[in-house]
């Protein structure tokens, strides 16, 4: 490992953390409030900065300077550890997400991705499964009835939908024959019958629906936000984290998890950084034919692919907000029924059907 390589790694990590904080945390926070306001015919934040653009900054500063109340019944250590686990989980899951293809700069292959692991998708699942601890421990630590119930509900819900989520991607893995996220994206490049991109959603539509539903449940978003059903549980497992950056951590983690989920959906089902029918090499040679040098051709390509990825991700982030104001909340027994009696058998059926079709063809 040479020093330049190490520098590139650190630069990538900084980039991803910045994306996590700004694109996911900041922009999404503001966008959610603005879109929500629009859908409810309100104005939304409009006092801090032009058009309320600095509102999240004001919120962060406020959260930092608020009193950190540790209730006298709380389990002190876990009260501090739980939000740390949440933040760590959210940030670490970004590690394997590829935002662009591998391009050559000064003879060095580079992609905007921290680590290209051969267990790619499983890494995200493994890290995401830590989120259960954050929920159940913060519910436990607060030692309040609301937060405890919220934590329990949330963790039981997360593990229930994790099964369906894991099963739903099996079909994708069977078709693209790899766990590596880059290979899965590359596998989606051919065109079926000359016009339809071989995206995951085309070859595995049922898996997409199951995965999307499970993703909403995993990120604890409406219609599955049972753990913070505000009419029943105040704020669920964050009830006792009423102030300070601990609450900020939960908030930030939720947005970053939304970003990660959207990115995984885009990678598995919507071709990741790909523009349908155009390969990376074709884009590079297009820029070279316009008279750009090799370095700039690679640079433009990487920026273009970054833009494509972000556009696709942004659509799903918007979907998260859109659904929030469209679909009413589930009841808890309905939620568990949907997970165990609905999605689970559907996902298994999907695997067997995919297998059968692939054997016959």
């Amino acid at each position, binding site marked *: 490992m040479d020093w330049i390589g190490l520098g590139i790694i650190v630069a990538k990590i900084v980039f991803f953390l910045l994306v996590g904080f700004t694109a996911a945390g900041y922009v999404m926070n503001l966008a959610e409030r603005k879109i929500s306001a629009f859908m409810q015919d309100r104005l939304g934040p409009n006092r801090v900065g032009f058009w309320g653009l600095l509102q999240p900054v004001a919120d962060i500063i406020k959260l930092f300077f608020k009193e950190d109340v540790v209730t006298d019944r709380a389990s002190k250590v876990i009260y501090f550890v739980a939000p740390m686990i949440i*933040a760590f989980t959210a940030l670490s899951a970004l590690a394997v997400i590829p935002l662009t293809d591998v391009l050559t700069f000064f003879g060095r292959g580079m992609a905007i991705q921290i680590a290209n692991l051969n267990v790619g998708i499983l890494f995200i699942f493994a890290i995401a499964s830590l989120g259960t601890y954050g929920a159940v421990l913060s519910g436990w630590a607060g030692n309040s009835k609301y937060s405890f119930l919220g934590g329990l509900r949330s963790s039981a819900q997360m593990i229930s939908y994790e099964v369906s989520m894991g099963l739903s991607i099996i079909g994708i893995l069977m078709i693209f024959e790899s766990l590596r996220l880059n290979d899965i994206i590359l596998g989606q490049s051919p065109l079926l019958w000359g016009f339809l991109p071989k995206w995951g959603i085309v070859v595995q539509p049922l898996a997409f629906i199951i995965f999307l539903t499970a993703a909403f449940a995993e990120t604890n978003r409406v219609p599955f936000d049972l753990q913070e059903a505000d009419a029943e549980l105040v704020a669920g497992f964050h009830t006792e984290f009423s102030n300070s950056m601990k609450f900020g951590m939960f908030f930030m983690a939720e947005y970053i998890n939304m970003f990660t989920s959207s990115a995984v959906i885009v990678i598995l089902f919507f071709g990741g950084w790909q523009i349908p029918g155009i390969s990376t090499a074709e884009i590079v040679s297009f820029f070279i034919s316009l008279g750009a040098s090799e370095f700039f051709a690679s640079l433009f390509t990487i920026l273009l692919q970054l833009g494509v990825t972000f556009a696709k991700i942004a659509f799903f982030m918007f979907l998260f907000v859109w659904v929030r104001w469209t679909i009413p909340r589930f009841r808890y027994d309905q939620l568990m029924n949907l997970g165990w009696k609905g999605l689970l058998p559907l996902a298994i059926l999907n695997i067997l059907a995919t297998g059968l079709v692939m054997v016959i063809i």
Partner: protein
Amino acid sequence: MLNEYLPILILFIINIAFAVGIIIFSHFLGPRKSSAEKLSPYESGVPPVGDTRIRFSVKFYLIAMLFIVFDIEVVFMYPWAVIFKKLGLFGFVEMFVFIGILLIGYVYVWKKGALKWE
């Protein structure tokens, strides 16, 4: 081989430092004016009643147990899925038997009403 995992290690270290740092930092930044009322757990404004550390329903245990079983089932499927094309019909029959045996359990669990949330 290890080079692939070095970035992960660095990322983990940075993330741990960040998570711990922010929480500790913000803990010392705010004012401290506590009173007995402020330090009591939130219970919609009335004084908290009884203990929170009650024994909770066994349903949650059951869900966690079923989750482990299905999680391990999925784990077996990952290596199968990535080489499915090479295994062909043989692989399909293998997995069919595996899923079939587990489906017996699933139907049993369903019939026993363990999946029903009361």
